């Protein structure tokens, strides 16, 4: 990842230096898992749960996505899914469902950034 790329990522909600730290300093490993994120089905599961208003499935998916985005230092995705988890836990699934739109936007922009990685 060159400097230009790093700055784009930082601007787009992926804190690169934090991410590399999480992967014990291995840039290669971090990049590998960023690319793998494309294949991650968690967001799909979450979308389905939102559609069917299934709060159990919604919580599981939000929690899983929170973990993954946290590890990859995807700040916005992490924050929103975090809030969703809190809402689900407080038995306020409606609040969580409402956050989906904002989440989708951040999720898609992160995916676009990753697609640019060689």
């Amino acid at each position: 990842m060159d400097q230009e790329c790093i700055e784009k990522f930082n601007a787009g909600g992926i804190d690169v230096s934090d991410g590399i730290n999480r992967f014990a300093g291995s840039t290669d490993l971090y990049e590998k898992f960023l690319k793998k994120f494309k294949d991650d089905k968690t967001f799909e599961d979450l979308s389905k749960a939102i559609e069917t208003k299934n709060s159990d499935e919604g919580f599981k998916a939000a929690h899983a996505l929170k973990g993954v985005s946290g590890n990859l230092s995807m700040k916005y995705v992490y924050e929103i899914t975090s809030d969703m988890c809190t809402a689900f836990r407080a038995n306020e699934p409606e609040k969580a469902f409402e956050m989906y739109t904002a989440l989708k936007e951040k999720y898609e922009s992160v995916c676009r950034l990753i697609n640019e990685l060689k």
Partner: protein
Amino acid sequence: MPDRKVMLIVDDIEMNRAILKEIFTPEYEILEASNGVQALDIIHQNANEISIVLLDLIMPEMDGFEVMTKLSTEGYLPRIPVIVITAENDSENENNVLELGASDLIGKPFIPNVVKRRVNNVASLYNYQLNLEGIADDLSHRLRASNDAVIDTLISLIEHRSLESGQHILRIRKYTMTLLEQIVEMTGKYNLNEDMIRTMSEASALHDIGKVVIPDGILNKPGRLTPEEFEIMKTHTTEGAKVITRMGMIKDSLYSSYAYNICRYHHERWDGRGYSDGLKGNEIPICAQVGGVADVYDALTTKRVYKPAYTHEQAVKMITNGECGLFSDELMSYFIAAADKFKSVAQNYGDEPLKFKNNDAKQNDMIDDIRDSALRLDKLKYYAALKAYGCTAIEADYDRDTYSVVYPQALMFEGVAQRGEITKAAQYFIDTFVHPDDRDNAKKWMDEEKKKRLAGDMNDRTDECVICSDGRKDYKKYLIQSIAIDTQSTRRHRALLVLKDIKS
């Protein structure tokens, strides 16, 4: 202990495992599991190698809580530390997880360095504890061995008022242990663990201690006992039990209660027609049942004043036929399964006159070991270290201008005394053994050495020197080191001079 430590990482999310793996390779060899079932499998198969487990809580198939519970009941936790790494790091989970026996709980997302340190801290603590256990085990074995030898001898004396059958007690203990181990191999119904077996076997040594109150005339009568004599003989069970009660807590209450039971009940019969209390069937404690078999087998297969020795085969037949006391069919089936082992004990530990000399030597060694004063032990360690380093070591006292060769005992430099004056000896040494080209340098080094040490210099000094140890042939490079011996007194100036052959 294996060289590289093995770590098991359990998490259903591949990324999480990958991050942890990255942190701990190559310090640890990494095993992975993606759910609780896999984790338990791996632990069962690799229990002796695994140093530590990192466990996630939320997983499919079997979650971390269930894994912890199983590990706890299966008894792995004292040996294998488990650190839970989870996103569920609220205080309720923390409490639950720690209650279940986890060593620590680390929340996700984590800082790699922090995890590394916490994991290593826990692992080295367990390592230290296990090492201690090993050392303690060792010590307790030796103490036991020395105790056993003494006890066996004393009891034999009491029992037979003669020293002819010193091995009898040893055999009884071995028969008891053999049969108990056979039982455990074949059934779990008596809930016997290793500790209990060991304690019961030790306690069986006292089974006939009641004989101390039986008159010689009866104890050593070569012929059949009259009914009255037999009644008196029978009392050795209850009298023995009294002795044990009076002895109180010799070692611990388990030992005492086994000893009491074996002593009092080893002549009971399965049908209730034995003595002293007429206990029937399973009223008879298992330790006493087993002790009874051991006693009768030994009595049959050894010569006694009132009978010759029977063969192993005859003894087994008589016992299983109920000719010498009556035991349960079940116990007899275990006895038959263990019969071969009984036979080897009988053969390997047959009676011979007590070899006092051997016993003395063994016990003296042990007493010496225990008697080593802390000072002597330290000195021994010091010599061992020098020996390991493979050098010549000389203690120099510059205030008195004296030296003394510490190691090796026989100096290889001929003409140099074990002790003497530094200045003179150094001069002689340099002129005799140091290569002519190196002599000036060596003299200078020695002069400086004295000067600096007397001035209070505590620094280590090193130099190389070409020396020929037998004054004639091959010169070799040696390393000469001087290490100050800190005496905490400013008026004493001492150093350790170390000469080491450098492999060139």
